[in-house]
């Protein structure tokens, strides 16, 4: 016998008479699964820690006195396992457990949303008894109770597998639901006053009683998806369809830069629900509630279905045919091109293909580099940073985040601004060694759940901290450490320069995390005033030549001067210097100064809006062209990693992509190049009508040979001084807020975190307010009044407000951005400011 060295990290066991090799520590149920042996189970979930709560997975293991739960039993050398397929004992044990589970299970299948895709239904059929011996009265609870405005809980159906509570605790960190009570009264519920001797309201609806804490987790939808019975259901999908009615299509989420893969289920031309897709590299099996439920905008009443044209006589928008509207758009844009030029605001919600169409349209049809996708406060430094450190780079992945020893997060609240990145960070923190350092004004709920160490930062001070704070430098010293910066750093002069320099100095890899799904793709597609597609600098003649070649135009035809960014476009338009604006899905209230943006739209000679729903832009546009929402087109997003998230059409409709509309307009725009002057009737051929054609064009574009531009080196500025009752404003957007894609979705809005104004202890003492008192934050433009929440770690002169939540719209009400100095008063505003207060 040759002595074969046995690998010490594997064991050999027998399952149902078949010998199999498994890794040490693997669970019996997983090994069986790999072999194609299905052991029935409820509580077991590959991404949750083993619990052994339901006992459905019992198997017979030789040498064990009783059947063993295969979802908690790890493999051992020489183990002999017999499942229900080969062992009477296992089959009988499983049948018994099933009978007990069904003893108290109501006969709800006909009305239950899970019916038809229910693991309990299915496994009762495959592994249960044909009849029940239980004749007694079943346990009764009040039928479904709202544990949040979105999630309903039917405790009669619950089999107490604790998947939901384990998800909430282990993965999301939101321990809002838990097992309560004892014995046969044991149940899942939210924390309620009446459980702890309080009064409660007794109406079963969470959140109404004083001490009730509703299930307002950003990730609550995942519990509905993994509940193996119909105990947890969602308000939106309630009773809408049966699984056999639905056509399922894999797709990608259009909301944030996390890039979750999803599954959209539609019936009769309407998407009825969306589920988290299974993509281990990105979202694993989870998504956030915004992605799961935030798709009502597709069917909103104010969706634009036909082209609209401003009637010269009445000044009102009227419906028009496509040919009329396209011609009007082309003529108006051609005239505007010769009359000061056209600025393009592309917005951050475009697919890569559509963004590329805008980039190409701006350069070829409008002859300008005045194009910017950034619909938020921004800076020129940021554009340089994006060109130098982000375009075309995909250095950091989710896996890197999970396995990193340390991560410094600046200008980003991961839970609010990139929920799946937050889940990965949390996985790294709870299961591996990740230590998070937050450079932030205070430890938000999300950072607390990441066990983050705080480097307290007054907004505007991040640049100095990145350049010189010892804690930040120490955190990045470990090999594999990550520096994760958010898009909000754009408003801090010098911060992105300092981040790039710090990355270079410490060797830490840098990841830039924007907020919207289309942001990252728009950079690589060339929707920036300083970048052509593929991260090619506008100012580099060689880069321009490459693009001319790819676009089949004469060299020298492309505009050479770097263009204006969003702020400059808005300012130029407001000053009457621009002939026209071409606006994709941009909401003026997202820009640094919404009032100026609206003035710009009013002042611009000619405005073309490509939109889904009526907005502040369409109200001011001369031509409005309807475009397809994500579900009705195919496309690709680039998530923050730079990973392609391609998706195909879910609902085939006649709605057109932005690229197709732009191609149609371009075909009617005469080329403005002198060489083509003689044949002015010939329009410009953009070639962006078909998503596949764009993908081919992008795919065949050779990588650029021009040198990457150097990172910006902008100096940090000093913090502004604050007087008494003045503070520096910190702000970011909460995950569920008044974003235009969530507008009108009241059920989802009900799970948002209540807007508060967070003030430091020093400010609270100065104003004489305690938690819950009204505090007014004011600028010269307006004021916002919200209940105060005194926040311990906030630096003394900092106040925090949500950027765009009910009662707190920073840009619109205050006209400032983070880092500005605001005035604070206790109570509601006096009569002068009250008039400018938007909502309270």
């Amino acid at each position, binding site marked *: 016998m040759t002595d074969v060295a046995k690998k010490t990290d594997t064991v050999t066991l027998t399952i149902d008479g078949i010998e199999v090799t498994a890794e040490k520590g693997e669970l019996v149920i997983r090994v069986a699964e790999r072999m194609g042996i299905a052991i029935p189970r409820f509580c077991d979930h590959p991404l949750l820690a083993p619990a052994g709560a339901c006992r459905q997975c019992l198997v017979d293991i030789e040498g064990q006195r009783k059947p063993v739960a295969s979802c908690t039993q790890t493999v051992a050398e020489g183990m002999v396992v017999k499942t229900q397929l080969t062992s009477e004992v296992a089959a009988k044990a499983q049948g018994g457990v099933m009978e007990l589970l069904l003893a108290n299970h109501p006969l709800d299948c*006909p*009305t239950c949303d899970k019916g038809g895709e229910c693991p309990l239904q299915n496994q009762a059929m495959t592994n249960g008894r044909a009849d029940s011996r239980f004749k007694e009265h079943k346990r009764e609870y009040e*039928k479904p109770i709202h544990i949040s405005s979105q999630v309903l809980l039917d405790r009669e159906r619950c089999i107490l597998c604790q998947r939901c509570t384990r998800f909430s605790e282990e993965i999301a960190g939101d321990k809002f639901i838990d097992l309560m009570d004892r014995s046969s009264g044991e149940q899942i519920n939210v924390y309620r006053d009446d459980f702890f001797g309080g009064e409660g309201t007794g109406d079963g609806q969470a959140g109404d009683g004083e001490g009730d804490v509703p299930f307002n987790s950003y990730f609550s939808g995942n519990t509905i998806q993994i509940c193996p019975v119909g105990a947890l259901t969602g308000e939106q999908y309630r*009773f809408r369809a*049966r699984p056999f*009615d639905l056509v399922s299509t894999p797709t990608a989420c259009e909301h944030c830069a996390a890039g979750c893969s999803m599954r959209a289920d539609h019936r009769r031309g309407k998407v009825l629900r969306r589920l988290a897709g299974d993509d281990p590299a990105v979202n694993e099996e989870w998504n956030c509630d915004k992605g799961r439920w935030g798709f009502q905008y597709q069917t909103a009443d104010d969706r634009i279905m036909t082209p609209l044209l401003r009637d010269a006589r009445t000044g009102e928008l009227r419906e028009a045919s496509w040919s009329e509207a396209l011609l009007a758009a082309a003529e108006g844009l051609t005239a505007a091109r010769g009359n000061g030029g056209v600025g393009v605001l592309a917005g951050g919600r475009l697919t890569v293909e559509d963004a590329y169409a805008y980039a190409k349209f701006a350069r070829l049809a409008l002859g300008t580099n005045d194009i910017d996708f950034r619909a938020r406060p921004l800076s020129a430094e940021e554009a340089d940073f994006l060109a130098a450190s982000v375009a075309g780079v995909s250095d950091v992945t989710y896996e890197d985040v999970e396995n990193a020893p340390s991560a410094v997060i600046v200008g980003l609240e991961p839970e609010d601004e990139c929920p799946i990145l937050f889940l990965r960070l949390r996985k790294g923190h709870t299961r591996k060694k990740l230590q998070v350092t937050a450079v932030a004004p205070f430890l938000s709920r999300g950072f607390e759940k990441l066990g983050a160490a705080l480097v307290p930062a007054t907004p505007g001070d991040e640049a100095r901290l990145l350049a010189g704070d010892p804690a930040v430098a120490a955190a990045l010293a470990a090999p594999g450490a990550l520096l994760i910066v958010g898009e909000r750093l754009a408003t801090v002069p010098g911060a992105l320069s300092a981040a790039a320099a710090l990355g270079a100095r410490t060797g830490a890899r840098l990841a830039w995390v924007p907020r919207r799904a289309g942001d990252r793709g728009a950079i690589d597609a060339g929707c920036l005033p300083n970048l052509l597609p593929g991260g090619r600098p506008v100012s580099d003649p060689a880069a321009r030549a490459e693009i001319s070649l790819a676009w089949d135009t004469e060299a020298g035809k492309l505009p050479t001067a770097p263009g204006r960014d969003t702020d400059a476009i808005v300012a130029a338009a407001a000053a009457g210097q621009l002939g026209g604006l071409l606006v994709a899905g941009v909401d003026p209230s997202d820009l640094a100064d919404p009032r100026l943006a609206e003035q710009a739209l009013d002042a611009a000679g000619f405005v073309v809006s490509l939109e889904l729903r009526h907005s502040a832009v369409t109200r001011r546009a001369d031509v409005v062209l309807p475009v397809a929402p994500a579900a009705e087109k195919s496309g690709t997003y680039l998530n923050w990693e730079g990973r392609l998230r391609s998706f195909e059409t879910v609902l085939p409709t006649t709605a057109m992509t932005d690229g197709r509309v732009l191609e149609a307009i371009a075909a009617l725009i005469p080329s403005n190049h002198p060489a083509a002057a003689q044949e002015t009737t010939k329009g410009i051929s953009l070639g962006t009508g078909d998503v596949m054609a764009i993908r081919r064009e992008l795919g065949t574009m050779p990588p650029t040979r021009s040198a990457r531009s150097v990172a910006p080196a902008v100096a940090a500025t000093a913090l502004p001084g604050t007087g008494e009752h003045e503070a520096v404003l910190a702000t970011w957007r909460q995950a569920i807020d008044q974003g235009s894609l969530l507008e009108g979705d009241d059920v989802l809005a009900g799970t948002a975190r209540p807007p508060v104004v967070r003030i430091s202890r020093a400010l609270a003492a100065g104003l004489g307010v305690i938690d819950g008192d009204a505090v007014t934050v004011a600028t010269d433009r307006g004021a916002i009044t919200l209940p105060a929440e005194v926040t311990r770690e906030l630096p003394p002169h900092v106040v925090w407000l949500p950027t765009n939540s009910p009662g707190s719209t920073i840009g619109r009400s205050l006209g400032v951005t983070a880092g500005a100095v605001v005035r604070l008063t206790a109570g509601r505003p006096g009569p002068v400011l009250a008039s400018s207060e938007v909502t309270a």
Partner: protein
Amino acid sequence: MGTFTGSFKGFGVTFAHMFRKVVTTDYPFTPPTPAPRYHGRHILNRHPDGLEKCIGCELCAWACPADAIYVEGANNTDEERYSPGERYAGIYQINYARCIFCGLCIEACPTRSLTMSNEYELARDSRQDLIFTKKELLAPLLPGMEQPPHPMRLGGTDKDYYLGALDNPGTSVGAERAPWSESGTEDAATAVDADARPETAGTLRRPGQSAKEAV
């Protein structure tokens, strides 16, 4: 000769038939009565207080081999209740251009909401009219019934309805032969005798003739 006897032989068949029982029916003047369990058009039955028995579960649609049934469930509220329990059929349609009258839907229905009547006169002159909705399918309100939406009158919970249904079945029992089921459910139990039976497509009587005379 052979021709002569041959024709008599042929007439013999004719003559013999003159003394046999007639199988021709006088349809449409006298519509024949089908067998008691004949599979005719469907009925959506009611509870004794008028609430709908259908819970919008779609099991009938699931069972249907012809894909003839379309159901969309909806949420009952205390303010607006159409059936006991949480769920009712917001939309219910049977497409008689597809239905093959197999009765599998009846077997699938968990609440005995769906039954089949004996009515067979389903010809219509457009496809659209062949799609019967809740309006056509719901059983009429018998005496003592109330038009939903209204609160549960028979007890506090849906269980009271389902447990009581054994002794108090509403319109489910005898629905096949109920007078109203013969003539379209819209017309309530008033149409008891054959003369009052409204004319559906193709049942025009000869002028002045009663249904009995037509026999």
